């Protein structure tokens, strides 16, 4: 078990290093280099940048310097907002993003799984059709459409703010729009996996042993049908992360998603690379956690290295 986790950690770190390397050289591949394009830089920034990244060094040295800084947790100054370092911007943005992201995860799991189960148990009734129609819409209507429609609707509701995160109700819009896709996906996945599990032989065995229908569903069937749902959690985190780019923009939330989109639009390379690395590290870490969760739910997954 420990060696399994150890191996996972090492392979996660290697992956992260490769991602950093690829991102680094990708941005360096821009003709003229990231800090010398189009807009002339303020002298102070240029000096700081050159000092921080040793831009006068050969590219391979720059890479190691960047890694060295990174190892100390330093992502360098922002290219467009020289007064701030990338770290400062991240620290400012993360709590906002984490709040809506965390709420979205809770919302998705606490609503998506029950909806899927209900749909499966009432399969081919009007309840099932209703849930599945909404779930299909949730998957097919992009989050930015849901978000903007929400704002359109909210302008006629006096107590519903159309942006920011200042009151508790202000969370409704961003969380709903951000969760839409994954919530629908989880509901659909739970439903189909529940239906599949209910057809399994071991469910018939449980029934043949007189286990009550309640326990058959909520003990025997539910745990099995959650296995595929667990495997979706990784992609779900990815969907929420990238989803927050537009949600934060639409709802005017100062999270890292917004910094990322702004940095992309403003071509603030240090910020782009910093946020990307943060995202990659976070994602790899979450996938690692999901892996462990997965092996807890499904005993057939071997934990031996």
């Amino acid at each position, binding site marked *: 078990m420990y060696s399994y986790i150890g191996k996972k950690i090492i392979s996660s770190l290697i992956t992260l290093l490769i*991602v950093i390397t690829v*991102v680094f050289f*990708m941005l360096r591949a821009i003709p003229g280099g990231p800090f010398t394009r189009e807009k002339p830089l303020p002298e102070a920034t240029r000096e700081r940048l050159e000092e921080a990244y040793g831009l006068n060094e050969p590219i391979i040295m720059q890479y190691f310097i960047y890694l060295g800084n990174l190892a100390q947790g330093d992502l360098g100054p922002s290219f467009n907002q020289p007064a701030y370092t990338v770290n400062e911007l991240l620290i400012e943005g993360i709590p906002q993003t984490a709040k809506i992201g965390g709420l979205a995860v809770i919302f998705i799991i606490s609503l998506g799984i029950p909806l899927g189960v209900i749909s499966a148990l009432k399969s081919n009734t009007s309840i099932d059709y209703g849930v599945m129609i909404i779930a299909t*819409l949730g998957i097919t209507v992009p989050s930015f*459409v849901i978000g903007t429609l929400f704002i359109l609707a909210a302008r006629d509701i006096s107590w519903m703010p159309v942006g920011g995160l200042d009151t508790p109700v202000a969370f409704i819009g961003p969380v709903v729009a951000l969760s839409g896709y994954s919530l629908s996906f989880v509901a659909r996945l739970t439903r189909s996996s529940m239906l599949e599990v209910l057809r399994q032989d071991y469910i018939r065995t449980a029934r043949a042993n007189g286990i009550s229908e309640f326990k058959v569903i909520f003990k025997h069937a539910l745990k099995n049908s959650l296995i595929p749902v667990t495997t979706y959690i990784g992609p779900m985190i990815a969907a929420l992360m*990238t989803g927050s780019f537009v949600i934060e*923009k639409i709802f005017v939330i100062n999270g890292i998603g917004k910094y990322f989109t702004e940095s992309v*639009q403003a071509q603030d390379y240090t910020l782009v690379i910093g946020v*990307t690395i943060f995202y990659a590290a976070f994602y790899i870490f979450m996938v690692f956690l999901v892996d462990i969760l997965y092996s807890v739910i499904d005993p057939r997954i071997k934990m031996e290295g």
Partner: protein
Amino acid sequence: MKKNRFDFLDSTQKLDKEQIRKSLTYWQDVWRRLRKNKLSILGLIGVVVVLLFATVGQLINPHGYDVQNRDFKNVPPSFEIYKIDDDMYVYLTEMYLLILVNEDGKLLDKFDSSHLDGDPITKIYNYRLLNEADEEIALVEIDFSYSTDPLKADENILYSINYKGIEYKETYDKVWNKSFLLGTDTVGRDLLSRVMYGTGISLTIAFVAAFINFFVGVLYGSFAGFFGGRTDNIMMRIVDIINSIPLLLYVILLMVVIKDSSFEAYVLDPIFGAGGLGTIIVALISVYWVGMARLVRGQVLSLKEQEYVLAARTIGVSNFKIVTKHLIPNALGPIIVTMTMMIPAAVFTEAFLSFIGLGISAPRSSLGTLTSAGAEIMQTYAYQLLVPAFVIAFMMLSFNFLGDGLRDALDPRLRKG
């Protein structure tokens, strides 16, 4: 009689009991099952409608997607008109521009209000209709004092229109815009044309990306699966690494790198036309093939052990031939489903990129750029958001229904009754 009933039957009498089931070819069978699924047929119809909309639609529609009608900016698909004379109807836009229309809702001309001649105290402003020679042929005064003047505050209107000394407070009718069926955008381009053109661009991106992804993914996946062992290990490790962060992040990074670079200027734009269409396609195909590669590899691995492949090997058929002649056709079902799903995914990604400012640039449009432009002004001109958003949702829904239906129809586990 009784005796007869105990006579033995001869063999012909028995045979007609046996049912002869017509044997269908694979594709007939798939089509038969697809047809049974109402939702997927709806999806198929939806896909055809979208394709026609983007192709034939553009040919029929009289307006060009990039023609700016400066007189008619932000005119919605339907509006309220005032009748101010026999055969004279006007419509005041949200931007307080006065437009001369006919009774049916055809836009005729714009009143001149460029000099803002009016009285800021009484809030009565003049709008002049000019002829070709810039001579005034009609003067309309609009009284905007209703919202500010306490004496008039109880009247539930924002302004009144005065023409030839008569004050018109009530609208005459609500009419559909006959000149521009879905209205115009901020610079007066016909929204319908732009949406048709944008749908075409989005579909082009999606189809080109899906097609190239298909090729790269299938080649990569089938070779990894076919050669197995070390080759497979290394090839799949690469896929794992690419997959280890959300693919959209790479796409965004690639967009940042390629956009405005000389690669875009000298290689992509000459092929795909200006505006960064090629950049989006290249960014999309750089990473999205990995899903297809994984899938094909899995299929190939399981098919590889099957007898006909072993047989082909034994008689010395070349590896390449086995992959192209045997394995790929057999893995076709899931590949087609993935392709169907890749198209809406690419449309979505394009829209997403536009939304964060990486879309293709004007005057070309895509569903993404239209939605994102619409979102900026949705508080005033909701239709400019709703129209492209609806098309995206419609398209996603259609492709998803079709894809779901195909998945069921192609699923070999269900290939029975």
